[in-house]
């Protein structure tokens, strides 16, 4: 119960912060809306815009309206996209959830497996080479990796599409073709994120596994005649996964941030790119909506991590 109360207090604090942060940004939405002096708008039109979006109201009044609308499930109206925030960010969140979800699952499973192998086979020369490769991959910026994949697999080989998340050709809008289109568009951005995320996971698992390789319970398991595979995954890896599980929530948030440049490179219509545009355009309602959802996702990730921690280490539950 106290944990739920804690999460609730965090949520209230976040709502206040969520309202204040966009407004603390220098620059005003109307100047950003019409661009860098690209368009000369009359003072009358500027005033009309201010009234339309409630920007002429005092901040306290804007806060009341924001909370009131939020309680009714209304996230507001995007200043830049001239559409309800829920409609603008709904599909973007789904695309990012798909991209980040797939990358998260693949990078976690493959990364954990690779980490275990790197630790167990640490004396092999290929393992040392792979550790070096992991370090190089981890230090590469996501957009550079994405650009390289785009040039090789899309431009040179012509295997994958250049942009977007679906086939935009109307004749391909049949369900099966749509599904294939989604998959084809997903592969390169997801591969970029997996390549960017997997080394970190592998190195983390490897480091924590090295500490338990020769633990007494491993010796005990061997003495009982258990198979090497069982010892490796049930005894060693399970104990080495704790730091990884602790970082699960954080990792998902980081993956969300890493998705931004990848989404830009592949013109993938995700929430990262949308948030970037919203920040540039000082689109307060859209920033608020996206931040709120992001924060809820991270909170949820943390809750899941707590649950996962108890699963991996039953001592945590019994101590609580």
């Amino acid at each position, binding site marked *: 119960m106290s944990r739920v109360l804690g999460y609730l207090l965090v949520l209230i604090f976040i709502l206040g912060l969520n309202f204040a942060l966009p407004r603390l940004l220098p620059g005003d939405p109307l100047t950003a809306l019409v661009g860098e002096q690209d*368009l*000369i708008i*009359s003072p009358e039109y500027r005033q*009309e815009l201010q009234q339309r979006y409630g920007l002429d109201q005092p901040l306290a009044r804007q806060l009341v309206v924001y909370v009131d609308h939020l309680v009714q499930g209304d996230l507001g109206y995007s200043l830049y996209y*001239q559409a309800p925030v829920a409609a603008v960010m709904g599909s*973007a969140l789904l695309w990012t959830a798909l991209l980040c979800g797939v990358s998260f699952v693949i990078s976690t499973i493959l990364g954990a497996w690779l980490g275990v192998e790197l630790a167990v086979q640490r004396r092999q020369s290929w393992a040392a080479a792979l550790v070096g490769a992991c370090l190089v991959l981890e230090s590469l910026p996501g957009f550079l990796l994405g650009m390289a994949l785009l040039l090789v697999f899309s431009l040179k080989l012509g295997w994958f599409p250049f942009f977007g998340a*679906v086939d*935009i050709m109307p004749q391909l809008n049949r369900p099966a073709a749509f599904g294939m289109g989604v998959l084809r568009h997903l592969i390169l951005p997801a591969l970029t994120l997996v390549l960017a995320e997997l080394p970190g996971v592998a190195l983390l698992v490897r480091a924590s596994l090295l500490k338990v390789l020769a633990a007494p319970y491993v010796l005990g398991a061997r003495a009982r005649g258990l198979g090497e595979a069982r010892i490796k995954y049930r005894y060693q890896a399970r104990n080495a996964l704790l730091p990884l599980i602790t970082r699960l929530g954080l990792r998902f948030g980081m993956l969300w941030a890493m998705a931004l440049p990848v989404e830009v490179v*592949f013109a993938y*219509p995700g929430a990262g790119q949308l948030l970037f545009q919203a920040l540039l355009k000082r689109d307060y309602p859209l920033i608020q909506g996206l931040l709120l959802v992001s924060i809820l996702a991270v909170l949820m990730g943390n809750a899941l991590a707590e649950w996962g921690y108890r699963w991996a280490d039953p001592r945590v539950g019994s101590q609580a």
Partner: protein
Amino acid sequence: MAKKILWLAPLALVLVGVAFWSAGGGTSSQQYLIGDPQGDWGFPSPFAHNPRGPGYLRVSFLFDTLVWKNAEGFIPALARAWEYQESPPAYVFHLREGVVWHDGKPLTAGDVAFTIDYLTKHPHPWVDIRPIKQVEVTDPYTVRLVLSQPYAPFLEEIAGTMFILPRHIWEQVQDPARFQEPRAAVGSGPYTLAEYRREHGFYRFAAFGQYYLGKPTAPEISFVQVGNELVALKGKAVQAATVPPEAVQELKDQGFTVLSQPHFWCLKLLFNHAKFPQQDLAFRRALAHALNLPDMVSQTLRGQGLPGSPGLLPPDSPWYHSPQTTYPYNPEAAASWLASLGYQRTPEGWQRHGQVLQLEVLTAPPYARAAEYVKKSLQAIGLKVNLRQLDHAILDQRVKTQQFDLALSGHGGLGADPKMINDLSMGPLAAEFLGGYQPPQEFIRLLTEQLYTLDESKRRQLVARVQEQLAQELPAVPLYYPTWFLGHDGRVPWFFTRGGIAKGIPVFFNKMALLPGPGLSGSP
């Protein structure tokens, strides 16, 4: 190890299989895609589109105006002819008969009158209809617009920019920005809206068979968001896109058509006119002499641009005048102007009353190279300068509130009607565009006079004097006009509109290029 490789093999096979299954996912010959890195520019209705140029451009495929422009100048659109009456000043537009909206209903003078009435209640960022005093519908195909006084930019600013709305659809609409149903895209333009997907920045327009100038030659035309325009064009995933100068030759070698466009965007060095010494003409002239603009173009744009004219308008503007007052690179002259303000050069910098002059130059990421060049040039004459990089929104606000010393900022629209100079030199907007510059009375008189002079040759002389005045007063230093390029597959005969589309949108995608028959584009 070999076992592990065997495990990974199926995964790789799946990847390659999916890739091969996907082969042939290019665009069909029916499709014509234009790539745009920004993507979404709002729902394409006259009131819901993003107020910037690309938003307006998309709507222009769906809605028509009374007149339009091609490469040569104004051409008839919904109005087959028009005439000007002097007393009282008025324009009479004779509409084409038989024009229909996308829903098949006829377009009449009543729709034009309704549009003007609607715009008085719902201001539009692109059209200021205040010069219109009265609207008279003399018959179903004739409308007379009486003006409060002669207004030279009328055709460009109003008749050539105002989308005519279907009365039967919009008369019930109270909140036009939120009216985003398919009916809101029913216009009288050459294309109908077939599809709009916000998240993909995707606009698909289908040719309108009953268009009064003939069915467009391209059955479909679309805009779509791309991550990298050049890569998408080279991979033939799009058929047209803006390309960087360094890719021009390579694209030509690959068989693409590459067009360069007039220089209607300018990067300026802004002065804060509320501060000394920036408010002093001698200081502004000193800085102008300290900058070697041709060298700046060569170094920061690799030669792909034109050095700024102190009269603001670029050499390829229809209204360009080469000012007699110029500021060639001359560090000695710069030093002499600084000395005239009482500054003395010391090893620490230029001092006055014991204080060293220190300047901060605000800049945004796209201008990083230009900013470095400005910094080095000013340091070369002994000024102490530091750069501060900000994002556009912050930079614009700092300029608007005059919280800066010097700033680099750019704007487009330089091909538009010279009314643009009035907008950025006078009134409250001067703070945003010229750092709070207060023009002298004589300059204001010239600007006002050119706005109300209908005789084009007389107006040309006045606009020339305006540019001369700008060169003398130097409220800001125009640094350069970059050259922009369009790469495309050559299927559509794109041309550059005189002065830019509508009131100066500097892009090639004029709908007239898609219409059948000669003469509509006006291009040679």
